[in-house]
């Protein structure tokens, strides 16, 4: 195993006042072969489908390990023992219909109100602690190239922009730049840091002339500069390392305009590669299944119109096809993770995958009983955990269980003060 001369770099960084947890990449066996059993890191993937999931086809009738699968869960039957389905859960006071999608991972209440401020999302909490170990602390993704749609939010409640489609992501993760490109990027980073130096001086000058509350504003600006500097330094450290070689050597076929399911599939493939190569450990996928009627046989109506089916059986039948297509893609993704060996187990055992939607019933924009399931990770699965459908259990508790697996607390998420009863670790 090679070891790169890491002491000089560590020395440099420490002396510049920034302590980074340098990745164990130099000595990581990931680039060169399968890791040993103690080395497998934990990952978190959250997938949100924004147009709802019809509850009468999703929720199983009875609870426990012997539950009778619903039609949608029947699709996931080959992996029955690898996931848990939940009912009777929602984020308390997240009551904005479609706008709930921004509170999916944050639990911030009343997203539709005029003065809404979001909170930090659970993926960012994990990325803060574990993100420094990987080239990408997190990946927020969206299969279509929509502007600004995200469910990842930082501590200031600011949405984090998505990372590009599957092809762009593949490039970012696995295609090394030419030496000239890398040099140019490093120069760019250096220029960036020197600009930040200038800005810091500007702020210090300005601070002397403003009121106390204005100083708070400038202080936030100053803090942002410092954080950005740290990020640029980290990027620079990663720039000099070669990118990993994934098990799939050609970029995925991402599909054309209007092929949303194809794009989703391609994106999930790249995400699996990203997890396999430890390029990241935190991923979110924001999927909006609009405009996919051309891709699904038997569908002739726009998705959103179908979700407001008003109980018309023909429309329910069409919507069912769309939702079933998504579950098949989910099965494919989970199965891919299951088939990837890692440290004597499977990648799926080290990856907690959350799949769900932010409304109980999209037909009426109901805010209770959100369809949710959790697959993988170090949990005992194969059951239906049913909570009270009138007085819902907070989803924050589920996040607390996931964060607990990561060795972290979920006190910042509403409802996250304790873990979920019935979800055990293995």
């Amino acid at each position, binding site marked *: 195993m090679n070891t790169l001369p890491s002491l000089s770099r560590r020395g440099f960084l420490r002396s510049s006042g920034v302590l980074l947890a340098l990745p164990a990449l130099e000595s990581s066996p990931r680039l060169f072969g399968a890791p040993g059993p103690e080395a497998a890191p934990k990952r978190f993937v959250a997938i949100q489908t924004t147009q709802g999931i019809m509850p009468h086809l999703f929720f199983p009738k009875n609870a426990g390990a012997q539950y009778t699968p619903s039609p949608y869960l029947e699709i996931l039957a080959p992996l029955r023992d690898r996931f848990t389905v939940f009912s009777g859960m929602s984020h308390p*006071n997240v009551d904005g219909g479609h706008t709930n999608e921004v509170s999916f991972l944050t639990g911030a209440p009343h997203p539709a109100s005029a003065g809404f401020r979001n909170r930090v999302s659970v993926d960012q909490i994990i990325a803060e602690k574990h993100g420094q170990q990987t080239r990408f602390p997190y990946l927020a993704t969206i299969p279509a190239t929509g502007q600004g749609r995200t469910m990842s939010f930082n501590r200031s409640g600011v949405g984090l922009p998505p990372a590009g489609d599957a092809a762009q992501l593949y490039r970012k993760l696995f295609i090394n730049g030419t030496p000239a490109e890398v040099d140019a990027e490093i120069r760019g980073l250096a220029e960036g840091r020197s600009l930040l130096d200038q*800005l810091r001086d500007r702020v210090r*000058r300005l601070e002397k002339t403003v009121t*106390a509350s204005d100083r708070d504003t400038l202080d936030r*600006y100053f803090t942002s500069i410092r954080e950005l500097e740290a990020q640029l330094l980290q990027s620079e450290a990663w720039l000099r390392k070669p990118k990993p070689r994934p098990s799939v050597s050609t970029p995925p076929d991402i599909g054309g305009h209007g092929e949303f399911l194809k794009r989703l599939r391609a994106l999930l493939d790249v995400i699996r590669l990203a997890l396999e190569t430890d390029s990241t450990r935190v991923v979110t996928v924001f999927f909006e299944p609009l405009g996919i009627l051309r891709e699904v046989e038997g569908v*002739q109506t726009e998705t959103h119109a179908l979700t407001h089916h*008003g109980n*018309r059986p*023909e429309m329910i039948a069409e919507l069912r096809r769309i939702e079933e297509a998504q579950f098949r893609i989910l099965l494919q993704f989970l199965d891919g993770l299951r088939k990837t060996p890692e440290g004597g187990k499977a990648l799926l055992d080290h990856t907690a995958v959350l799949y769900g939607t932010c409304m109980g019933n999209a037909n009426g924009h109901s805010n209770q009983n959100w369809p949710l399931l959790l697959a993988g990770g170090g949990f005992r699965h194969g059951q239906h955990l049913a909570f009270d459908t009138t*007085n819902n259990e907070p989803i924050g508790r589920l996040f607390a269980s996931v964060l607990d697996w990561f060795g972290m607390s979920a006190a910042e998420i509403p409802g996250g003060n304790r873990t979920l009863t019935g979800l055990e670790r293995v």
Partner: protein
Amino acid sequence: MKTLPVLWFAPFLLAGTLLRADIPSFFGQYCTSCHGADEPKAGLNLSALGEPSQSAEAYRQWVKIHDRIASGEMPPKAKRQPSETERTNTLAAMARSLVDHDRQRQRAQGRVPMRRLNRTEYEHTVRDLFALPHLQVREFLPADGRMDGFEKTSEVLDMSPAQIRQYMEVADRILDAAIATHDKPPTARHRYRMLGSYDHFGRTVFPLRNGRVDLGWLRELNDRPVDGKMLETELPKAEALGLMTQSRIGFTAMVYTSPASFPGNYRIQTRLFSFRPGANGELLPEPRGQYCELTLGDRFIAFLDAPSLQPTPHEIVTWLNPNDTIQLNPTSLWPNYFHILHPSTPAMAAHFKWGNPSHPFHYRGPIVAVESIDVEGPLFDQWPPESHRRLFGSLSFGPAKPAKGQKPLRQFRNLPRWTVSTANLESDLPSVVRSFLDRAFRRPVSPGELEAHLELARKHLTAGEPLEEALRAVYRTALCSPDFLFLHEPASIVRHTGTNEPSLVVDDLAVASRLSYLLWNSAPDDALLQQAKAGQLQPEELRRQAVRMLQDPKSSRFINDFVDQWLGLRDIDFTTPDVALYPEFRSDLRHSMIAETREFFRTLLTEDLSVRNFVDSDFLCVNERLAEHYEIPGVQGSAFRKVAKPAGSPRGGFFTQGSILKITANGTVTSPVKRGAWVLDRLLGTPPRPPPPNTPAVEPDVRGATTIRKQLELHRSSPSCASCHDSIDPPGFALESFDVIGRWRSHYRFRGLRYGDPEQRRGRDPSLAWFPGIPPSQWADMVPSIRLGAPVDSSGTTPDGEDFDDIRDYKRLLLQHEEAMARAFVQRLVLYATGAPVRFGDRAQVDAILQSARARQFGVQTLLMELIASPLFRQK
């Protein structure tokens, strides 16, 4: 809706604390039985409430308590009521204390924390700064937060590392666009004749010759396989190209080559007309007004009218980027309804084959014809362009001559590199940099600041960078600097001339920025800056400047931005109506709806019309498309104009406009609750409280089996629901007469035979009059598919117990709340204009503004001007 008693005019003493006055005893008698320590109702425990100065939350609670007692809402009617004197005295004590708290706060730190430019302001600022009116950078900045729908308040305009990173990237983009790096590019002229791709030729688009549809030629074209070669030989023979949307859903009438080789201004000229083809290909008149939508890249530019049989020239000068495409979509034409019903079946494929009614050879419906599209450019008044001069002044500009040891310049295009140079670095450098910084920072830069920037430039020069790169580094820093990104408002204590009250007041340069960001979303121009530097911006001068600035075309930015945020128009694309049920809704209607609301507000502003017009007006601002939509006869052309509202029309005011009706519906069904909440919130300033948790959602039933009114029955029968819904539902019921796209309806629409309903044709036929110009074969498909069901019942009762039959009745009742609407409007203006919402201590000034405008029936312009001239506008 009761009006709040005007207590804050009560004389102010230096207040004692709230807890020292009669207030605890008042609470003890009338409040703490519910709001005490044992079971604090709604989470409010009065015995544990601190002073307003203790925390923002405590302050908010005190304001709420004051307002609820003042409106009579508390104590609840069923409980023991205080006497009038007790109520008045307690409220006065609370008011004194809250006002005093606010004043102290204002004196110490101002009511407006320092705020950064939002991304709309940023974009307009750089467009003006660099004289690049079509520069697009907004999309590269993260979305801003919102308060009350507005993106203008400090509290929601945050800063993060991601934000700064974007500013750095955007600064580079701006400088790339602004700096000239080669000699003046040659101006070229191209004529484009083809729209769509070559395989559309003769099928979706078809040529006209000899003043007719040459049927023989058309037949010949269809017998040959289509390829590029055929296009080359045949297209030049055409006089014009006929467009029909009938052939392909989603067909884009686009010029497939990007006309612009360099970014710059281009002149686009075209000639359009419309017709109906006769049986022998002759051109017959087209009775309905047709037009094309000109789109560049993905920006909607304008409607271009295509009058019947009259080739009409259009000319537009606008910016094009190298990848921008030109589209001339004939959106006034009806889409092919058959295609909507059968998007991907063998029946559809057969439908467009030769011999079928949708093929140009047989089609007899309306056609829009394009004679040609000429593009000339890039056009530059001067070279290097103005954007370059803003950065480099009059530094020499010519072929780059790299000096020994100098680092190479970045190459942007495959052209000989030109760059700036100077023989007098020592004098030119400071002059050029100062000129830019003064403009960018919106105030004269101090010698120290200038020196810091010059040092940066010298550092780069010494390191061997060329002059252009050294200056770029300086400008990049300036564009990311807090002096540029934030509205810096140096303030000092000033005593008000009337009352001698001290408050923290911003300097003239800051007031100038406030005024220009209010009316132009951008930095002050030279004339305004001049007055500011000379210390001349007294209230009267501010008014004069405001009048001047409102007359400038840049004031459209205020009109568009304020209306969008105030009324929530950004949600216009949130849902897409079911195209099979509402084929009337196409992008032309969508653009017209937005334009109408903006035009209407512009008229209210320019003519200083009363806020009463928010509810009802005797005029409308429409174009032909909207007039058709609103069933108003006699309007022709796509331009907007003011027309008198026909007698008996339900239109007029904001909330009967298509845009508002659409954003308060969801594409399939309307919701009285959503519409009612909009009226309460956006017009009256009293947003309803959110529903209690665990409220089950209403599942709309679009089979026509039940109406929304029946489904909302609980709102009336349950007292806890009724407490809010008695106010929310009535406006919503009145507006049930309008469907999801704002069309008037007497019966609900639902989908018919589409899914092979075994029952034949439930409901009633739609009316042909709603679909003017639809070809008969299409109409035959629509009748079984668009059905009319249950009748609409738009009656209701207001919370004051007054009945109404429909929207016309309801408007009369709503007009009684004129003052409440004026107040809500001014509150939003304050938020938009100053960057902070109205606090308790600001209410006196809001009242003063309203008082000054009372004689003008609360005219919109008067209200705006009074705000600008008020002390509130100058307060930090």
